[in-house]
């Protein structure tokens, strides 16, 4: 069941559009937070709030890659290995990341902490290698930095929504 707070949050999004249906993406993000992925129940709840059929909501959820239909790790890592990043060593770095976590690409660590997804271009090609963790950017990665970041998540010293990583390093 969606919490009352989650419902209120979705209601706030409804005000932005002339149709309820337009709030489907924001609503799915909110519904996904509870379990990290979209449970059948979450799909039904969103359908109910937006006055849609659950099958319609499911098909929209299925179209977009940021909605997860299966359980994922507590933190989802999107590591960019698209062409611009790969020209700067991203494929090799992704192997190191996977080795450190003991997973294959698309896999989840045994402790359920991290899922690693190779990503298409994340609009940060000048700061490769880079990744997003829970959609927060971590850029210009080195192996040392990577270790610090992974440790930070494990120990709870980094919390993605609070982590401000936008650097004023542009020329």
């Amino acid at each position, binding site marked *: 069941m969606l919490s009352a707070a989650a419902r209120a949050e979705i209601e706030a999004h409804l005000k932005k559009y002339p149709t309820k249906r337009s709030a489907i*993406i924001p609503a799915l993000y909110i519904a996904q937070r509870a379990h990290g992925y979209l449970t059948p129940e979450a799909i039904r709840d969103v359908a109910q709030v937006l006055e849609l059929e659950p099958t319609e909501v499911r098909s*929209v959820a299925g179209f*977009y890659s940021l909605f997860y239909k299966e359980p994922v790790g507590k933190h989802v890592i*999107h590591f960019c290995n698209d062409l611009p990043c790969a020209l700067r060593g991203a494929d090799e770095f992704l192997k190191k990341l996977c080795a450190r976590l003991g997973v294959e690409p698309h896999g989840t660590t045994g402790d359920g902490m991290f899922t690693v997804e190779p990503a298409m271009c994340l*609009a940060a090609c000048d700061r490769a290698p880079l990744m997003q963790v829970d959609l927060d950017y971590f850029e210009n990665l080195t192996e040392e930095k990577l270790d610090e970041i992974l440790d930070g998540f494990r120990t709870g010293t980094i919390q993605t929504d609070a982590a401000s990583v936008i650097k004023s390093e542009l020329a």
Partner: protein
Amino acid sequence: MEHVILRHRNIPDLHRLEVYQAHGGYEGWHKAVTEMKPDALIDLVKASGLRGRGGAGFPAGLKWSFIPKDIFPKYVVVNADESEPGTFKDREIIERNPHQLIEGVALACYAVQAGTGYIYLRGEFKQPARILQKALDEARAAGLIGQNLFGTNYSLDIQLHLGAGAYICGEETALLESLEGKLGQPRNRPPFPALVGLYSKPTVINNVETLANVPPIALNGADWYKKLGTEKSPGTKVFCLSGRVNRPGNYELPLGTPFRVLIEDLGGGIIGGKALKGILPAGASALILPASAIDVPMDYESVAAAGSMLGSASIIVLDETVDILWATEKMVRFFRHESCGKCTPCREGTHWLVREMERIRRGEGKPQDIDLLLDITKNMSGKCFCLLGDFATSSIVSTIKHFRGEYEAATRTNGQ
């Protein structure tokens, strides 16, 4: 170089409203709403020659003039989906100079008399969206956006909308579908969005960078703007430089600046002093240009004449160490992943292209497979529902044209 768009590089803290206003921010907006007729604003943007920065280079003022006057409501939708490999300019504008974007959206809305603007950001732009939302809240609190602006009867609301991971939503009609809460799949055209757009109402869709050009035009006039760039491609452009160069990044330059200035002077040349092999002028969607194109001016006409397109100007540099087949496979994989599945030539064709490239790269290809690849592209080009299907063939067609020897070398051992 004087920045028109990346002004934050000269002005610290430009993302803050009071700093932006101290540097002429929202002056053009105030003047437009209090002193200008909407049509005068359209004419001004027309006269400036500003062309769309999202890919096609369509004249912005002309696009606005297609909006019918007598149908309400109307919408302005900003394309901040920025997902083309190698493109990272809209993100910098949003994060570092958000008010210039907001002012540009506001001016576009006033020009076509839209009461609502939506800014559609790719889902991965959670952090940029937060910065933009803060700027929007500031602008609202300062009475720059809202009801009865500056004592007139014009009211304006601007909303942010995050997508959820789908490159195709950068295609303007797929974006509208997505914003309406549906699958992000392209629509039939005609009707064009100018007549039947968001919620079936007249809609202007512009790229982030396009609209960020409008406030300086409103403030300084069309003649000032036309002094920058070339006659047919006026103004400056933010060029995204990535790949095998020493100093990748965004560089704002007058349109018509040669690739050489960007790659060698500003980008610091190629890593390790290697030789240039090829240039992708518009990310994975463009036909590759050979190294001999280094002196081509970067404007819409010149890059087209050289056999490619300027697109959103995401310039990916390949050097002599790059395996062309490897790079091509990366690009076709991108399109296979991003095909929305609506039409068969694209959905199936992108799978075939990836499968063939994989086979050739595993050393299992035969010489005739090169022509098979070209055959697949012929069955896609011009036969797909939207341009993504055509884009998916660009890397194959152009790398076979310019680097056929590498394909031959990879398939030779399996000759018939």
